[in-house]
C-alpha cells in the first residue's frame, strides 16, 4: 500500500489544480477574513454579534463543500478516464489497497484545502486578537472542520469509484454537493424558526380612518419544528457534511450554537468515514473494470 500512496501523492503534488485551489483558498480566506476583521473594528456597533470565530469560518466550510467535490471528481476521474487504474490492478495491486490509497490521498488533499482556509483566516488575529472560545475551543472547531472534510471525501471517493466516467462523476458530485448543501440549509432554517413569535405589530384603523399600530401579543409560531421531529432534524443536520459545514459557518451565532451537537457530529463524521470506506472497498472489489 505504501507504493500506491507514494505514487498517488507524487501525482497529487504534481497536479496543478491542487496547488491552484489551495493557493486560491488561502488567498481568498486571508483577504475575506482580514477585510471582515477591519470592518468589525471600524463599525463595532454594526457587528455586535460578530466574534473572531464567526469571521474565521464564515463562508469557509461552504466554499470547501464546493471545492472538494470538484477536486476529488477530477483527481480520481482521471484514473478511470486515462485508464491508469488498470496499470495498478494488472501488476497485482489489491483493489482494497488501491481504494484505501485513493481515499487517503483525496482526504489529505481535502485537509490541505481546509488548512489553507484556516491559515488564511489567521489574518484576523492581529486585528481582533484571540478567539473568544480560546485556543482549545478553536482547536475543537478545526478538528470538526477536518472531520467534516474527511467524511465528505469518503462519500465522494465512493461515488468516484462507482461512476467511472470523468465528466459524469464531476457533474454528479457537484450536483450532489449542492443538493446536500440545500438540504442542510433547509434543515438549518427550519430549526431556526422560533417557538414563539414575540415581535411584530397589528395595524387597526380608528373611527377617523387613522391606522393604529399595536405591539402583537406573543403567540406560537406555526412553522416551529417541535419534538420529536426537532431531534431528528438536529441529528440529520449534525450528520450531513453539508449540515456540519453550515453549522461551522454560523459557529458564533447563538441560535446556531443550540443546534450544534459537537460530540455527535464528530462521531457522525467518524461513522460516515468508516461506513463509506468499507462500502467503497467492497463495491470496488466486485466492480468490473474496462
Amino acid at each position, binding site marked *: 500500500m505504501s507504493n500506491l500512496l507514494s505514487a498517488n501523492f*507524487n*501525482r497529487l503534488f504534481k497536479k496543478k489544480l491542487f496547488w491552484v485551489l489551495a493557493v486560491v483558498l488561502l488567498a481568498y480566506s486571508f483577504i475575506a477574513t482580514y477585510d471582515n476583521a477591519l470592518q468589525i473594528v471600524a463599525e463595532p456597533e454594526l457587528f455586535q454579534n460578530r466574534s473572531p470565530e464567526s469571521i474565521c469560518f464564515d463562508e469557509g466550510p461552504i466554499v470547501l463543500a464546493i471545492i472538494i467535490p470538484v477536486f476529488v471528481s477530477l483527481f480520481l476521474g482521471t484514473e478511470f478516464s486515462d485508464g491508469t487504474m488498470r496499470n495498478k490492478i494488472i501488476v497485482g495491486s489489491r483493489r482494497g489497497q488501491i481504494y484505501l490509497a485513493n481515499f487517503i490521498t483525496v482526504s489529505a488533499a481535502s485537509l490541505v484545502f481546509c488548512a489553507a482556509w484556516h491559515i488564511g483566516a489567521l489574518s484576523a488575529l492581529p486585528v481582533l486578537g484571540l478567539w473568544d472560545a480560546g485556543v482549545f475551543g478553536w482547536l475543537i472547531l478545526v478538528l470538526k472542520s477536518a472531520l467534516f472534510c474527511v467524511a465528505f471525501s469518503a462519500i465522494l471517493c465512493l461515488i468516484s469509484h462507482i461512476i467511472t466516467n470523468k465528466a459524469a462523476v464531476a457533474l454528479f458530485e457537484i450536483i450532489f454537493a449542492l443538493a446536500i448543501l440545500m438540504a442542510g440549509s433547509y434543515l438549518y432554517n427550519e430549526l431556526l424558526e422560533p417557538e414563539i413569535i414575540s415581535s411584530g405589530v397589528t395595524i387597526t384603523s380608528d373611527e377617523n380612518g387613522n391606522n393604529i399600530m399595536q405591539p402583537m401579543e406573543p403567540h406560537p409560531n406555526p412553522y416551529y419544528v417541535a419534538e420529536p421531529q426537532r431531534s431528528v432534524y438536529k441529528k440529520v443536520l449534525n450528520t450531513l457534511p453539508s449540515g456540519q459545514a453550515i453549522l461551522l459557518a454560523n459557529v458564533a451565532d447563538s441560535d446556531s450554537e443550540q443546534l450544534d451537537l459537537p460530540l455527535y457530529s464528530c462521531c457522525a463524521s467518524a461513522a460516515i468515514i468508516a461506513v463509506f470506506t468499507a462500502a467503497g472497498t467492497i463495491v470496488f472489489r466486485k466492480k468490473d473494470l474496462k
Partner: protein
Amino acid sequence: MEYVMTATSLYKNYGKFKALSGLSMKVPKGSIYGFVGKNGAGKTTLIRLICGLQSPSLGGYTLYGIENRSPKIVKARRRMGAVVETPSIYLDMSARENLKEQYRVLGLPSFDGIDELLELVGLADTGRKKSRNFSLGMRQRLGIAIALCGNPDFLVLDEPVNGLDPQGIVEIRELILRLNREKNITVLISSHILDELSKLATHYGFIDGGRMIEEISAEELEAACRKCMRIEVTSTRALALVLDRMNIEYKILSDSTADVYSKLNISAFTKALAEAGCELISVQEHDESLESYYINLVGGN
C-alpha cells in the same frame, strides 16, 4: 510444454449476454500467441479477465500455474504487463514521469532502467513533452513501456496496431519481435488484422462466439496453408494412380478434386491422365492465407 497462461471453460456473462462461453486456451512459454477473432468474439473480455480487471462468471484460468482464485495470483500478476485497448497513461505527464509513476506503483527501489525502457520503445528524445501531445503510435509505445516496467515475462497486448499508420505498425511489430527474441518475453496479442499477426505469431488461437475454435502453431498453420494446385478431374482414383507413379505429394478432397503439392509438367500430366482414362477439368493455384484459414474455420459468418 510449459504454459504461461491457461484457461479452462471460462464463462463471462454481462446480464444475458454471454461474452465468453466455455473458452479454453493455453499460451506456451516463449511464444507470440496471436489471439484471432472478429469484433465481439470475446478477445478483450478474456484479456480483461486475465488482467484481473473483471472476474469470470464460471471457470478459471492460471498464470504461471497459479489459479485465479488463489491469493498468490497477485504475485503472478507482478510478472505480467498489459496494454488493454487504449494505452493507460497520464496525459498530463511526460513519458519519463509516466514510467516513474509506474515504478512507484511497483515499489521499485530506484528509477534505473527508465532510460533503457525509453530507448527501447523509441521515446528517449521526447523530453518534457506531455503525453497528451503524443501521436497514437507514441502513446501505444509508451503504454508498452509502462507494461514493461518491472521486467515482466508475459506481455498482453490488446489490438496494439489498431489505428496506427504503416510506419507505426512496423515499429510496434519490430518492438514485439525484439522483446520476444532478446528478452524472451511471452506475448499474447489480440488482433483482427490477420496479415500483420501472421508476421509475428508463433502460435494462434481462433476464437468465435466466446469459444476457442482452434489452437494451432505457426508451423502447423503454414503446413495447412501451404501453396498447392487444386485439380478437378473426372476420377480422383485415376488421378491418384498417376500422381503415385509420378511420385508427387497430394491430398484427395473429393471424388473429383485434389490438392497437389508440387509443380507439375502440365503436358506430361495431361497425357498420363488421358492414358489412365481420366479427363482434366480445371487446375487452379491455391494459396490459403491466415485470413482464408480463419474464414474457413469460423464458417465465414
